[in-house]
């Protein structure tokens, strides 16, 4: 019985029962760049540093 209920729940979560597909968040569909140049790495670093500043600011407010 438990197995059947579990199966039903899974079906609901996947949206199979209603025919609706669960949307994949766009961020998960973006592929990372494989071959990175020195400048690419520096750009990533610059971006991450800026995000760290924002996280720090957010935490300071809480």
């Amino acid at each position, binding site marked *: 019985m438990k197995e059947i209920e579990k199966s039903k729940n899974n079906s609901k979560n996947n949206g199979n029962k209603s025919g609706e597909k669960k949307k994949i968040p*766009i961020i*998960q569909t973006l592929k*990372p760049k494989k071959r990175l140049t020195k400048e690419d790495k520096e750009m990533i670093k*610059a971006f991450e*540093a800026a*995000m760290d500043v924002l996280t720090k*600011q*957010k935490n300071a407010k809480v």
Partner: protein
Amino acid sequence: MPKFKSFVFDQNVFTEYSNTLADKSNSLVFKMHFSSVVLYELAATTVSADDLDIFENWRKFHDKNNTLLTPDKTDWWETAKLIRRLRFGDKSASHGLTPKISHAGQLQNDALIARTATLAKCYVVTKDTDDFQKFVPFMPNLEIISDAEFFG
């Protein structure tokens, strides 16, 4: 999926999802454009000089890659006309009469982000989809994606 491939984040996305963005940096930085208006909003509230330098460094990369969206004189003029249309509830070619928005002046920055993003064929990712939707009658190519749709 959005019709445009590249995207621009609104200021509220950066402040809300900075952790997630840092984790996914390699998937994001080469596909995103960056708005000077958003940079202004982020930098103006920065306290330390070191933090300001970090934003400056980040800005330089987007400037060099031509992915920094900065409104020019035409963008400012067209945005002024858009905000005026919203204030007076002007008729739109695609939507007919639009509701009057008395606080339309407060939407100036969002309107600049929307205009420059549309011209660069980028969609806007924002938490304030309702505000950006107000521009659609006068900016039919504007594509807006909610933070929930982007980040899940």
